[in-house]
């Protein structure tokens, strides 16, 4: 699918209405043709980024496969809020097995489809960041290494939200969680390597890796569309703010996601066979303080005493990403090499 760049001429606002877009490019929330894979009535929190991301990702996958889709789900918020027995919000063939095995279960589904000659039916596996970077990592790496025909989607809300906001391998430095409390000289999560899952996915050399946020649903849909055009193991990492765990306002989910991208903290890019092929440039560069200060999980950085030193360290990470991925539009940089902060 070819993508036409969209130029916006508004100033002072990140919010762009559909009315500025051509009909074909508009985001349509409700349409009789929409599959509504994740239907209304589920029990996600108000402002849940994961519910939004899943709805758009799966509907895009359904469009791309003409409805021939099977989804495998890891245990987690998405599974719990969508299927309290005997209700289900899924209008697609959907299987939940365990927390840590969604990639392997998806491999099994794909193998069954292959052996039965159902080549038009495709498989999506989905999990939160815990189910992806921590407990599901072994199975995910195995699925990547075998290059099984599965699109794996990680809805990254940067902690174990379903169990009450505990730290995961995807929790960013200084963030408060229930297991990285905002106390002591280094409050919140440690500064460390973290687990940069998109890069780990790229290191497997799989055909397609991409990141997205729920702030740009067209970009998200396009990446799902692109992923479904490819066979083999594919990985899509979607940043999905969690108002409960992040301590952000429910109405700010899109704003927080956008700032994660516009600060450079969450690089949005695509990669094929381990090489970055496209980067979504920052449109309005924001400081990390703008991003951090509207989230309760970073409240300890802006209280008394304030911790500008920690904010500065987080800014360094953003600056590194900007330079590393060329997020300000500098395409001359080599963004394929892994460099740690």
């Amino acid at each position, binding site marked *: 699918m070819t993508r036409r760049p969209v130029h916006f001429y508004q100033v002072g606002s990140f919010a762009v209405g559909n009315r500025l877009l051509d009909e074909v490019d508009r985001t349509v929330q409700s349409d009789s043709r929409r599959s509504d894979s994740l239907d209304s009535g589920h029990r996600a929190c108000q402002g849940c980024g994961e519910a939004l991301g899943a709805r758009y990702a799966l509907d895009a996958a359904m469009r791309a496969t003409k409805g021939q889709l*099977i989804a495998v789900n890891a245990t987690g918020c998405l599974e719990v809020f969508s299927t309290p027995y005997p209700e289900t919000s899924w209008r697609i*063939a*959907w299987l939940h097995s365990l927390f840590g095995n969604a990639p392997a279960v998806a491999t*099994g589904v794909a193998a069954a489809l292959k052996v039965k000659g159902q080549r038009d039916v495709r498989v999506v596996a989905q999990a939160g960041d815990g189910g992806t970077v921590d407990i599901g990592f*072994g199975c995910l790496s*195995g699925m990547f290494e075998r290059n099984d025909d599965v699109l794996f989607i990680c809805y990254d809300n940067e902690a174990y939200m379903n169990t009450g906001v505990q730290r995961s391998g995807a929790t960013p430095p200084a963030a408060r969680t229930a297991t990285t409390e905002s106390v002591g000289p280094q409050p919140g999560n440690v500064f460390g390597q973290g687990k940069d899952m998109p890069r780990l996915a790229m290191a497997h050399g799989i055909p397609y890796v991409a990141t997205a946020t729920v702030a740009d649903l067209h970009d998200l849909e396009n990446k799902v569309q692109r992923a479904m055009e490819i066979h083999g193991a594919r990985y899509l990492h979607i940043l999905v703010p969690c108002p409960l765990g992040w301590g952000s306002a429910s109405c700010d989910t899109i704003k927080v996601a956008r700032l994660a991208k516009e600060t450079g903290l969450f690089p949005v890019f695509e990669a094929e066979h381990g090489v970055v092929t496209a980067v979504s440039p920052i449109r309005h560069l924001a400081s990390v303080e703008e991003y951090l200060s509207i989230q309760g999980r970073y409240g300890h950085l802006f209280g008394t005493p304030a911790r500008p030193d920690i904010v500065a360290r987080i800014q360094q990470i953003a600056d590194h990403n900007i330079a590393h991925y060329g997020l300000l539009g500098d395409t001359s940089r080599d963004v394929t090499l892994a460099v740690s902060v």
Partner: protein
Amino acid sequence: MAETVARCRPEVVCAYPISPQTHIIEAIGAMVKAGTLTPCEFINVESEFAAMSVSIGASAAGARAYTATASQGLLFMMEAVYNAAGLGLPIVMTLANRAIGAPINIWNDHSDAMAARDTGWIQLFAETNQEAADLHIIAFRLAEELSLPVMVCMDGFILTHAVEGIDVPEQGDVDAFLPAYEPRQVLDPDEPISIGAMVGPEAFTEVRYLAHLRQLDALELIPALAVEFETRFGRENGGLLHSYRTQDATTIVVALGSVLGTIKDAVDRRRELGDRVGVVGITTFRPFPFDEVRRALANARKVVVVEKAFSVGYGGVLSADVASATHDAPISLHTVVAGLGGRAITQRSIETLIDDAAQDRLPLVTFLDLDLDIVNLERERMDSVRRSGPSAENVLAKLGTVASRIGGSS
């Protein structure tokens, strides 16, 4: 074994190496690669947890799924083992029975199978390689009729690595006995359903009770399949249990798996000497055939359960089931823990047991051929010094060369 499994036409086979099952999976892999087993997807996974998980996905998508494991491998996949049963997916798995560490030990006992006792899987135990092969054919049929997973337990090394001629059933006969898999539930984009939803207190009991009922249904179906199997293949295998020379027996030995052969030899010998002794071999361990066990032991005065596993701090696992089945019978029940970690169970040891039981000398719980001297030495060592070190290594150091002792001290 692999040839028989292949004739069951598995469509997705997962492989992860662990002794002593690996050669079965290797042989199937070769058949898939050579194109002699087709259509079949052979998937080299990164762990046993993935092996069972891939099987779950394949089965839920309508494919006949097979895998094999043993020991630590079974424990590593255990979360998915429960899940497969809970979801009602008819996966068949070979369990090449092996001890569980620590201390690490690759040899045979039944600790692994007993650890899976409560998973909701049907567990069948093979006495011989012929029975192991035949049980796989029965297992697929049973699994798919009941929509429950079935574990075929065969003794590691004793059976898995025995070289003996067996009759591999003809493909036509297998096809006639085992029709194509018709799933009760399947992931189908054209008829989308949700599988694996969250179930709260309002329905959890009922869902679990249904699983129990299906296991109880197996108590009816397994004997029927054994009859059907015999009609088609001309061999008697499968079933709930098998009695041997129990008609007038006052002492009956009960066991699972390959040790039954040795026990039968011992029984034959004691019969020659005039002892009224028989054997009950339990083929179907889960669901446990309470009624049949009660009937089989109805005339016995003494029952000796020889088992290759035990519940630490409790005693015999199979013994507890046998005791439950015979709770209102006037019998004296003895547990003999034997063959742990590959310790050979000799005919002489079994004969001694039978004799001791007949003479009222057999304690309620016995560890067969236990070297108490070594145990006591280690106990003394632990009492005398705080940092006494790891017991396993201390025992080995005391033993010195061990090869000559695997048959026990008697």
